[in-house]
């Protein structure tokens, strides 16, 4: 139990290494191995969830983390510049714990969704497992260097997974995805170096994010809030915050840095879309929690109104785009942009409801959007097509498929009783309650809900209701209702979405203390 985080983190990589020694003809072995690896992760993460101590009184960030593992990793003398100290430093708090559990669950679903991948299966599953480890690593790393390493390492498998197993324009989409996110992470790299040079643990500089959040700055260093260092006439901290905003904003994605997302989603194979929407976007949002708001609370409080504005912009702009799409997958992709906007609004509110809602919205979207992409995959697997106009009246031919679609579309448009509502409600409560945000932020965000109702309902009407029709005669024989494998993915997702919608405290109880401290931490700087 002592090294449970390391097991969750590194187990998939170990399995991936083992896969290297298996003959690549044995297709089915790889998927079974991958499934067992993610299942082990899932079981361990559930254990972690159960054992997590929910009643803690947090007074500093260093007291917030549980299951901490800290080892010296790299120590390098750099002559006159000093010493490079990198630790292998893991831990979870109430913010990262739900995300770890979500990741393990979605990754397992992703393997089931990859079951039919036959082409170059060895490469596929090895890359998938490396991706798994890097995602988990992002959520549990407390050393900035380790975090950055994992953050960058997600790109590589993702690039190949889209670029090799993707759709027609896959190489364009994968290059676009890669360049976009690489561009973003360069900004983060700069800030990381700046932080390393400014934050100390004892006498030595450190990459420890905990020290950074607790604000142990070397007096007079570049990012020390007290030093008021200027770069080209701008406050160094403000510049660093802006860099972080762009870096994670691209990942989140935040309008106007979102245009990689629709292309990447449309070209990615279904399981990769599932992981991309369910988890990768959450890494961006997690970066906001941990780094933008955690390490730069003063700047976050100062620019909260702008962040809220960007959130509302994402909600409305993403929603309007979704309304205009004819490609089902593109519609779902834009709905992701819209829903992630709520995370921004919630964070910017800096209230318990807002921040808790932002986290809850991440979890909820992490369940709903994978389901939506699986549902898109159902129709695409059968016909290699997903133009809405090519289908109509599917409800009479595929009632079970329609049932799940209605459930998740309504979860997406915020029907009470399903998880989407709780996240949006909490974010809106936060946005309305806080006096630091204009009331228009709340009202416009509420309008976003009506827009999401418009595009989801229109899609249901066009594709599922009316007289049965498919464009090509040849598709007819494949139009069977859901297979057992597809149900196996959708039923647990439905159960979780319902559970979180009715009893949201499953998540909120374990995150509450941390969220409270987070709000207090940022709220201290409220103007």
């Amino acid at each position, binding site marked *: 139990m002592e090294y449970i985080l390391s097991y969750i983190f590194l187990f998939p990589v170990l399995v991936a290494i083992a896969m290297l020694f298996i003959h690549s003809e044995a297709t089915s072995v790889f998927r079974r191995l991958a499934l067992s690896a993610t299942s082990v992760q899932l079981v361990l993460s559930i254990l972690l969830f159960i054992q997590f101590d929910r009643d803690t009184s947090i007074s500093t960030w260093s007291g917030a983390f549980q299951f901490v593992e800290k080892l010296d990793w790299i120590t390098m003398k750099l002559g006159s510049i000093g010493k490079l100290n990198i630790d292998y430093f893991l831990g979870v708090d109430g913010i990262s714990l739900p995300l770890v559990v979500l990741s393990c669950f979605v990754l397992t679903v992703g393997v089931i969704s990859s079951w039919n991948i036959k082409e170059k299966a060895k490469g596929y599953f090895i890359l998938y497992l490396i991706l798994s480890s890097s995602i988990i690593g992002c959520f549990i790393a407390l050393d900035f260097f380790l975090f950055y390493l994992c953050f960058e390492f997600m790109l590589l498998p993702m690039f190949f997974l889209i670029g090799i197993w993707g759709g027609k324009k896959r190489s364009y989409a994968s290059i676009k995805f890669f360049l976009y996110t690489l561009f973003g992470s360069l900004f983060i790299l700069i800030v990381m170096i700046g932080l390393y040079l400014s934050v100390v643990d004892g006498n030595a500089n450190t990459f420890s994010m905990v020290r950074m959040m607790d604000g142990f700055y070397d007096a007079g260093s570049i990012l020390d809030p007290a030093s008021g260092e200027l770069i080209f006439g701008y406050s160094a901290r403000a510049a660093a915050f802006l860099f972080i905003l762009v870096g994670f904003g691209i990942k989140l994605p935040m309008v106007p840095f979102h*245009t990689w997302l629709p292309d990447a989603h449309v070209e990615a194979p279904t399981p990769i879309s599932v992981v991309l929407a369910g988890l990768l976007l959450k890494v961006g949002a997690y970066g906001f929690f941990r780094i933008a708001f955690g390490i730069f609370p003063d700047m976050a409080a100062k620019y909260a109104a702008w962040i809220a504005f960007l959130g509302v912009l994402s909600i409305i702009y993403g929603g309007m785009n979704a309304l205009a799409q004819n490609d089902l997958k593109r519609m779902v992709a834009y709905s992701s942009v819209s829903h992630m906007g709520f995370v921004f609004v919630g964070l910017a509110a800096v209230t318990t409801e807002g921040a*808790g809602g932002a986290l809850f919205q991440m979890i909820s979207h992490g369940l709903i959007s994978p389901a939506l992409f699986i549902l898109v995959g159902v129709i695409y697997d059968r016909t290699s097509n997903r133009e809405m106009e090519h289908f109509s009246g599917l409800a009479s031919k595929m009632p079970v498929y329609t049932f799940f679609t209605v459930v998740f579309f309504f979860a997406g448009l915020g029907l*009470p009783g399903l998880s989407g509502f709780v996240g949006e409600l909490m974010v809106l409560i936060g946005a309305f309650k806080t006096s630091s945000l204009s009331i228009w932020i*709340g*009202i416009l965000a509420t309008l976003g809900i009506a827009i999401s109702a418009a595009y989801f309902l229109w899609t249901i009407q066009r594709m599922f*209701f*009316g007289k049965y029709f498919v464009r090509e005669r040849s598709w007819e024989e494949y139009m069977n209702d859901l297979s057992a494998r597809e149900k196996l993915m959708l039923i647990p997702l439905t159960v979780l979405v319902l559970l979180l919608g009715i009893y949201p405290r499953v998540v909120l109880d374990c995150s509450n203390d941390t969220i409270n401290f987070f709000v207090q931490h940022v709220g201290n700087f409220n103007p």
Partner: protein
Amino acid sequence: MSMEALISLIVLLPLLGLGSTYALNHSGWRVSAAFIAGSFFCSVYLLFQLDSPYMVRWEWLPNLQVGISADKPAAILLALVGLLSLLVHLFSMEYMKDDTAKQRYFAKLAFFTFSMMGLLVSDSLILLFVFWELVGFSSYLLIGFWFKKDSAPGSARMAFMVNKVADVALLAGILMLLREGDSTFVSELGETLFFLPSLLIAIGAFGKSAQLPFSGWIVKAMAGPTPISALIHAATMVAAGVYLLFRIGPFLDSQVLAIVTITGIATAMYGALSAITQNDIKKVLAYSTISQLGYMVMGIGVSAGEASIFHLWTHAFFKAGLFLGAGVVIHTLHQRENSDPQDMRQMGGIRSKLPWTFVSFLVCSLALAGIPFFSGFMSKEGILLAAWTWAEQIGTWAYLVPDLALVTILITAFYVGRLVILVFLGESRYGTSVDAIKFDENAYFKIPLTVLAIGSIWFVYNINPLAHTSILDSFFGLVSIDSDSFIAQSGVGISIFLSIAGAVLAFSLFKPKSAFSLGYRDNVLPNSFGGRVIYNGFYLINAYRLIGTTIHSTAQGVTWVEKRIDGLLHFLAMSVVVLAKVLAIVDRLIIDGIVNFLAWIARVLGNVTSLVHARESQWQIIWLLIAFVLILSWILFF
């Protein structure tokens, strides 16, 4: 039985019904009806058990409590919803007998009942909003029940969207209460709310109760099965807005109350006018529902919430009775091929064929028209008198409100008379032979119709047929109107006169063998401007469509912007590539060129010197010596 268990049973039994429709394949829907009956009997039991309001709260989200409260108004309305739901279940057993998707139908019906019960007991406005949305969702599912029909899915979507817009206002209003630091528990409200939250909450209520400008969705909702129209879109769900206003009305800003009053009376007029020329039996009833809801909302506005709730109650009976009666007619005429079973132009003379339906329909019609000795008269009178009292306090323009209400009474009696005459009296206008149709009223139809008709007669509520008070007052509270004043008594007199006049007018125009009646079968749609406006419900639905298409074209515009943004980024990326290419050319031509040039020079020099190299080595040594001597001498001598 403890209160907690009782209320849980009332609310949750319908949910068990939902489960049973799917769990017990074939007879599940009958079991579901039994669960609804259980819920109804529990709510009746609750009526007798309840002395003081019963409240429970729990922490649903951190720092956010929600709670339920069962007080007398909630309890009596629980019983109403339970009873109506039970009757509609009974009715549907026959009505939906041959439908292959019975299971789905009864499951949705049970889900609706659950949501509506939950809405009634919600004390926290947040919890109320939860059930509010669920009610709207089940309404969406039931309107679109026959999803293969061309019209149903679109109608369901429009109804849901119109509601959703109002719901957004409601949610914003509720959350604004939190911003102002007010309680979100209805039972804790004390002070008058601010203007904006009041207005937003009222708009939310307007949406669900189909007030202007949201009225059009009810007409669209008629695409659902007729028993659904009876339960959801006439008797219960649409009353949710009135119920919310009843609860929150006393705390609304006074300006907002004036807006509520004006909206109410405008809607009442709007519905009554639009109902006059309709040829679709369900559309007449839909517009009449809009009109009656307008009455109730107006009642809230003039601070007579109790009278509104009484009208809600009586309206639930007679309107459900009318819809179910229409359902019997539609069900029967559905046997004809190639004709619209809802078109009144192809009805007529059904009285003798469906006598039981006729009698119950007539009773409910008289209640709707506001004829004395029927329930509608009593409850409408309360609202009317309150409006009068209110107008006296405000004066001038305010008298327009009760006056328009009186005009509405006239119009109502007129269109109701027209409806009854055209459907039931006179010669049949079926087209096909009457013998081809099987007329059958069995117990599944008769029992609900009878119960609803009895509920529309005066003595159920008060021995005095002209009273506006009833035995239900002990549940809603008493309307405080001075009913002995001269103006009140004359008001009662005028309204009786107007309702009878309207009915007589209808009879004289539409009576059997009249010119209108003989030509009605081939009645074409109105041609005049006014006629078309009224027939199309003031083009409200067209306005919704226009808004919808505008939003869609805006969305297309946003996507155009999106493509430009993507294009710009693409352009930036491409310019980097182009720059790289240019640099590559520069690299090759200039930098490489310099190196090559140097290399070329070296090569040329090399070649020149190689000419030298080519000679004998002795010569080279001699040249070297000569050069050495020359350089040495140059250094020494110059």
